[in-house]
Every structure is written in structure tokens, then in C-alpha cells.
């Protein structure tokens, strides 16, 4: 990256960013007043994928930890939702967040194991862990109903329209929080340490970044965020199986969205989810073809434009919406 790259990018003023964000969020919040329940379901899915992609981007794009086992936290979050809401009779909207707490708590011992693996082997290690959770859940035939899965019974206690509205508002809250979290974290001191680790772990350590602690922090935060979204996804679809919830396809979605949109930027996943939905809706009648096309586009991106669509746009428009890159003081 050259200095001219930095000098020529315009940034929205904090006020413009704030006002635009408030308007977008207000528009999103108003959907239940005029939108169909179909639209709301699609938007919940859209927001879920956006939040998942933000979490994977934080882990890989900012901290350099490529995990292909993020489905572990989706499955745990989803199952935690059902256990807390149905077995322990806790409010199901609250249970969504408890799912994130469960994921974060389990991420701690998991990190102790997978952090012993470097780079590529770390990726497969995270996958093994996700498989262990899937197999354990599937072998719980009484409590978790094994391979046939469970249904969120608590959902029946609430009138359908109200439940859908509340689920939708919760999704907006989670989606906005995910974007805000990454934005805030990357502008913090820890974020600076993270970027340093991604660029060179050895150099970061030599400059006093506590690399192990920062990486663990990010890993656990991402597990929490992904677990919460896992709960949200199954609050939306109401039925969970180990095969679907612990499927590696979730991670494939996250990776394709982030790589196509632009890895290591807050804007990238936003753009990526739009492309992802466009391709999926357009090719929905062609089964496996949409995944093949997404894979081809993602690989093409990695080879030709590793900065993704947002990288291309940023150069063209010379604009950053969510500035998290550091600049030298005299560049203003």
C-alpha cells in the first residue's frame, strides 16, 4: 500500500456517518410497519449472514486467523437457544444472547488446543473441533433428539405476528451491533495490535503487542458473536438439526461473502452479502450452480483483486465509509 493511496481517500465526517447510519437503521426498524413477513424473514437471513461475515472478517481479515470451523458456534448458539428457552424456560430472546455466552465459554478451552496449530493447520483444526461438537450433539439421542433435531417449542407461546416483529427487531439490533463492534474494535488500541499481528506476528510481538492475549480476545469475541447469530438464525427458522447447524456451508458463505466484498474492511462484508444474495436468488433454480459460481467468483477475486469489490470501489470513488485504517498525522 503506497502513501498516495491514503492521501487521496476521502472520508465522510463523523457527523455524516452518524446521520446516515441513523437514517438507515430507522428505515430498517420501520419494516414491520409496512413489510410482509416474507420480506422480514429474508431480511433476518440477510442480517444474519452480514453479522456472520463481519465476525469471520474480524477473525481472518483483521487478525489473520483463517478458521473454517465457525459453524461450531452457530450450532452451539442454536442448540443453546433451544435448551435455555425450552428446557430452562428462559425468555427466548434473552436465550439468543446466552447462546453467545455458551459459545464464548467453550471457545476458551478450544483456543488452548487450536492455537497450537499454525496457519493452514489451524484452519483444519477448527474444522475438527466443529465436527466433534456436531458428533457429540448428534449422539445425544434423548436430550437433543440426535440426528433428527429439535424444534423451538417456546415460539408457540407468542402470537405469530408479534414474534416475527420482535425477531426482526432483534436481528436489526444484532446486525448493527456486529458492524459497530468491528468498527469500534478496529479503531481501538487492540485493533492496532490486531492489524500488526496480521501483517507480521513476530514483528508485532517484538514491539510489545501481547499477541496471544489479543488473538484469544478476538477468537472469543468472534465465537460470542457467531453464537448469538446462531441463536438468531434458529429463532427465525425454529427447527434445528446437527447436520444443518454444524454444516461447513455456513463458513463457506462467510468466506465467499468476505472475499468477494473485500477482506479486512468493514464495508466489504456489506457489499459481499448483496452480491451473495443476488447470485443466490438469481440462480435459485439451478441448485448447486450458485455455490459453484460463488466459489469461482471468490477464487477469481483472490487472484485478480484480492482487495475485493470494496477495494476496487474505494480506489475509484476514493472514499471510505467506515475508516479504520491508520494515517500519518500530516495527512489530515
Amino acid at each position, binding site marked *: 500500500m503506497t502513501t498516495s493511496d491514503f492521501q487521496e481517500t476521502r472520508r465522510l465526517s463523523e457527523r455524516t456517518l452518524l446521520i446516515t447510519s441513523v437514517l438507515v437503521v430507522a428505515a430498517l426498524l420501520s419494516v414491520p410497519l409496512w413489510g410482509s413477513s416474507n420480506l422480514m424473514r429474508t431480511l433476518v437471513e440477510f442480517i444474519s449472514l452480514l453479522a456472520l461475515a463481519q465476525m469471520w472478517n474480524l477473525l*481472518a481479515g483483521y487478525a*489473520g486467523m*483463517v478458521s*473454517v470451523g465457525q459453524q461450531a458456534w452457530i450450532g452451539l448458539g442454536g442448540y443453546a437457544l433451544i435448551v435455555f428457552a425450552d428446557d430452562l424456560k428462559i425468555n427466548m430472546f434473552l436465550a439468543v444472547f446466552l447462546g453467545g455466552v455458551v459459545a464464548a465459554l467453550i471457545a476458551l478451552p478450544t483456543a*488452548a*488446543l*487450536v492455537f*497450537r*496449530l*499454525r*496457519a*493452514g*493447520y489451524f*484452519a*483444519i*483444526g477448527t*474444522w*475438527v*473441533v466443529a*465436527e*466433534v461438537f456436531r*458428533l*457429540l450433539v*448428534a*449422539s445425544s439421542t434423548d436430550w437433543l433428539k440426535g440426528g433428527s433435531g429439535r424444534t423451538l417449542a417456546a415460539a408457540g407461546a407468542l402470537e405469530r405476528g408479534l414474534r416475527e416483529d420482535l425477531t426482526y427487531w432483534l436481528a436489526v439490533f444484532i446486525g448493527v451491533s456486529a458492524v459497530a463492534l468491528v468498527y469500534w474494535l478496529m479503531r481501538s488500541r487492540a485493533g492496532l495490535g490486531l492489524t500488526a499481528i496480521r501483517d507480521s506476528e513476530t514483528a508485532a510481538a517484538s514491539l510489545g503487542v501481547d499477541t496471544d492475549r489479543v488473538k484469544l480476545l478476538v477468537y472469543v469475541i468472534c465465537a460470542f458473536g457467531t453464537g448469538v447469530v446462531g441463536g438468531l438464525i434458529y429463532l427465525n427458522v425454529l427447527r434445528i438439526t446437527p447436520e444443518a447447524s454444524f454444516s*461447513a456451508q455456513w463458513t*463457506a458463505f462467510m*468466506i*465467499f461473502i468476505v*472475499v468477494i466484498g473485500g*477482506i479486512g474492511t468493514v464495508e466489504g462484508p456489506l457489499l459481499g452479502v448483496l452480491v451473495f444474495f443476488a447470485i443466490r436468488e438469481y440462480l435459485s433454480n439451478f*441448485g*448447486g*450452480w450458485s*455455490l*459453484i459460481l*460463488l*466459489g*469461482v467468483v*471468490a*477464487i477469481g477475486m*483472490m*487472484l485478480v483483486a*484480492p482487495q475485493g469489490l470494496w477495494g476496487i470501489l474505494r480506489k475509484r470513488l476514493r472514499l471510505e465509509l467506515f475508516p479504520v485504517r491508520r494515517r500519518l498525522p500530516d495527512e489530515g
Partner: protein
Amino acid sequence: MQWVNIVLQGILLGGLYALYGTGLSLIFGVMRLVNLAHGDFIVVAAYLALVAGQMLGLSPFLNVLIVAPLMFGLGMLLQQGMLNRTLGKGLMPPLLITFGLSVIIQNVLLLTFTADSRGLDAGQIETASFTVGEVSLGVAPLMTFVVAVLLLVALQLFFSRTTPGRAFRATSDDPATAELMGINSKQIYGLAMGLSLAVVAVAGVLLGVRTNFAPADGPARLIFAFESVIIGGLGSLWGTLVGGIILGLAQNIGAQLNPTWFQLAGHLVTLLVLAFRPTGLFARTRDT
């Protein structure tokens, strides 16, 4: 006697896992690259052998002579046409590219061959077995093991005794210095990926003779390869064989205790090794 049988089956299965693992650790050793589509290439090789068998009517053991060179060429092409372009840009691009390939391969196989599982017809060998005392051994699993060990011996000789083998090791130790000695590291990387996929081709055919396979089977093969390597220790061919055998034993013993524990037992042994002996049992390659 039943347990003797289970242990023998586990050991024989380990030979196949060692081949999976060798293909994976070979390219990691030479260029620190982890191929996330590794397992899917094993399944591709099995399907290629299936198609070759249908077209030529030959036994899978002869088809491997067609499939292995094909996979070698595919590996060269993949490395030189695609992955070499990402050299020096960190570890992430090759990981994400091979992950994308994995998804593409699974879906292309699914669209081409449907989700039905298939097997390679090796004739009588598949069901033939012989009995020693009260222990009965299948000829196919035994052949798999023997072929796997022979291939490992051949690779060991290739790396230790031949000039290209030395070039591989030199590039693995220090690519910059190897370049100064006149070695074209990009070419070595291409050959390494080719060799890896040729080993994968043999593994894929042996897999097809032993059991059925389906388009979505790749990721599990990748994980078995990884587990053999991690248990055995990075960069050691014989370590990978021992790792594969331990994995095969764990899976077979686990399945005996509870039929659903086949994969779980293997994963747990791997995590135990990671917890108590993170460098594996016979580590050699440094992973930095």
C-alpha cells in the same frame, strides 16, 4: 479374537490414512501450503478411476496408471496456473483459494454423478479373504496397506537419494538459498503439488476399492489426512504412517464400543495428542 481382528483392521486402514496424510504434508513441507481441497481431490481421483473403468473396462489397479498421471498434471496446473501467483502474499490466499476449490469440486461432482455413493469394481479381490487361525483378513485391505507402505518407501528413497528429491528438501529448508543454487522454486512447487496429487490418486483408487464414496466425502478425508499428520508429527513420512495407524485403530475401537463413535474417537485422539504432545510423536518440519 474379535479384538485381534479389530486391531488388525485398524492397522490396515491406517495405511490408507498415511497416504492421505503424506500427500497433505508433502506440499506443506515444501512450501508451507495447506491444501483445503486435498480430501476432495482424493474423491476426484476415485471418480476418475470410476469413469476410466467404465470406458476401458480395466481393473482399478490398472486404471491407477491412467489416473495418477492425470492427477499429477492437474496438480502442476493448479500450482503453476493458480497458486504460484499468490506466492509471497502470505498464507491466506492459498488457503482461501483451495477452500473455494473444495466447495466447487463437491458441487461439480454432485451435479455430474448425483449424491448416490459409488464403488470401484475390483472383481473378486474385493470380497476375497484368507484366514489365519481364527483371524480373517480381507485381501483388499491388506493390498491397500502393502501398496501404501511401498509408496512411502518409494517417496522416502526419492527424497533421500535422488537429485530432484534433494531439490525438494533444499527448497523446503530455504527457498532463497535454493534459488541461488540454480533451483527454480516455482517449478519445484509445481512438481510438489503434482506429486501430492499423484499420491492422492493412488489413495483415491484404494479408497474406491475398499469402500463406497460420494461427492461430499472430501472434507472427512481432509480431516483424516490432517489427523494422521498431527498425530505422527509434521514432516515425518514414517510418523505419518504411525499417525495413520493410530487414527485407524482409534476409529475402529471407537466404532466397536458404539457404532456412532467411529469418527469421534479419531478426533478425540487427535485433540489429546494436540493437548499433551503438540508437535506430534515424530515431528521434523518446523512450521514457521
